[in-house]
């Protein structure tokens, strides 16, 4: 070989290895790294510029990109995935009365159809109430009922049981126990029960009252 003996002492690693090295350096580095610095950190004879070309191609379309910052290189998450870098802070809000009642009916009567919920509550159930409970994953769709129209039913979820500290829906106290616990004493006068149902949300409209026969 006609090479300088000093230079051949260090054989440059294969390009695949060089690519790995650039990848690791850019990943771990707190700042963008210039080609010169990459070369300085990599073994003698390595060609960071070429490795960068390969690496950039490899990350095309991935969740992470190779970007050039001035004359240095860095890895960044893909801009379209920025929304993933958000963490939600949670504001706790009490469930509306309509939602609680609907949830209670599902819990006590599951599987129950929407029409049945409306029959029990005596007012129509707004789409929003059901959606909220579905979204909270406290209720889910159950089996369709084998009645005309095959309406969907709702049942409570494991998440519901977890939230309320119940092992099963059967653990819910019965009417007798509710009464024993004094929960039934606050009885609204007959006929006024439906009035105070409104939560000022306009969710439930009495005009659509279920027709009880």
């Amino acid at each position, binding site marked *: 070989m006609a090479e300088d003996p000093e230079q051949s002492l260090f054989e440059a690693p294969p390009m695949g290895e060089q690519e790995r090295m650039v990848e690791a350096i850019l990943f771990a580095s707190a700042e963008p790294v210039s080609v010169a610095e990459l070369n300085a950190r990599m073994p003698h004879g390595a060609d960071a510029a070429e490795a960068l070309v390969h690496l950039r191609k490899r990350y095309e379309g991935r969740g992470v990109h190779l970007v050039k910052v001035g004359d240095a290189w860095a890895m960044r998450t893909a801009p379209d995935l920025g929304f993933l870098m958000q963490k939600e802070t949670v504001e706790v809000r009490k469930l509306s009365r309509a939602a609680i009642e609907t949830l209670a*009916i599902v819990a006590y009567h599951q599987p129950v159809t929407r029409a049945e919920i409306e029959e029990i509550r005596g007012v129509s159930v707004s789409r929003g109430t059901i959606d909220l409970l579905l979204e909270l994953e406290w209720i889910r769709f159950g089996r369709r009922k084998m009645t005309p129209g095959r309406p969907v039913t709702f049942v409570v979820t494991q998440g519901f049981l977890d939230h309320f500290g119940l092992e099963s829906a059967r653990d819910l106290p019965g009417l007798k126990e509710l009464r024993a616990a004094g929960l039934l004493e606050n009885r609204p006068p007959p006929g006024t029960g439906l009035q105070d149902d409104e939560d000022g949300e306009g969710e439930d409209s009495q005009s659509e009252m279920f027709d009880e026969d």
Partner: protein
Amino acid sequence: MSEEQVDTSNVTSVEARLAAEALIVDVDGFEGPLDLLLTLSRTQKVDLRRISVLQLAEQYLVFVEKAKQLRIELAADYLVMAAWLAFLKSRLLLPPDPEDEGPSGEELAAHLAFQLERLEAMRDVAARLMGRDQKGRDFFARGVPEDVTRVRKVKYTATLLDLMQGYARIRTRDDFRPYVMDRDHVLTMEQALDRMRGLIGYAGDWADLVTFLPEGWEADPQRRRSATAATFAASLELAKEGKIEIRQGETFSPITIRRKPTDG
């Protein structure tokens, strides 16, 4: 432990003193008496389970004796161990006392060997653990972790009490509403059968099935349908049991029943 306190006997030769010191000067380097015993046991160059505990005890006692001569202040731990090993030594040398119910010298020796083996094993795995690739030395995390921005999200909550109160509120709107829904409009076959069994004794003559419907069930169409179906099913059951006879003149004409005559 006052008798174990460092005494004031003279050390004869400076050389002997220095030699002993070479072994002992490092007493701060030992992590307690068990560690010292482990170090001493290495001189036996055998499996820790086969170590001569007696020999080890003697080595240790010699060590402590020398330390005393050198006026090296030994921690109480070392002196407690020395006392215990002296006791163990006597147990191992003397024939067992039948009166004594305590553990035998062999049991005590075996436990000491176990402790030494366990300590050495922990030393060994500790070294292997530290020899692993470590974060920040051999492998690295992301250099510029991206901050996760905060977004407000509403979380809804309700307690079991809310739920029960909500349910109680609905149920008390109409206190007479039975707990199981729709059951007030349904007559089960069992209910009809019970009723029929009571009534059939009086039905010697052909009578319309409709007359057997429970009171108050004829007016409401839904209730009437349910009661008729249940009563009809119940009468079929009774006919099957040979208790009644059923007759219908033609399609859609009234169905009549009577008690089956006893003579057949």
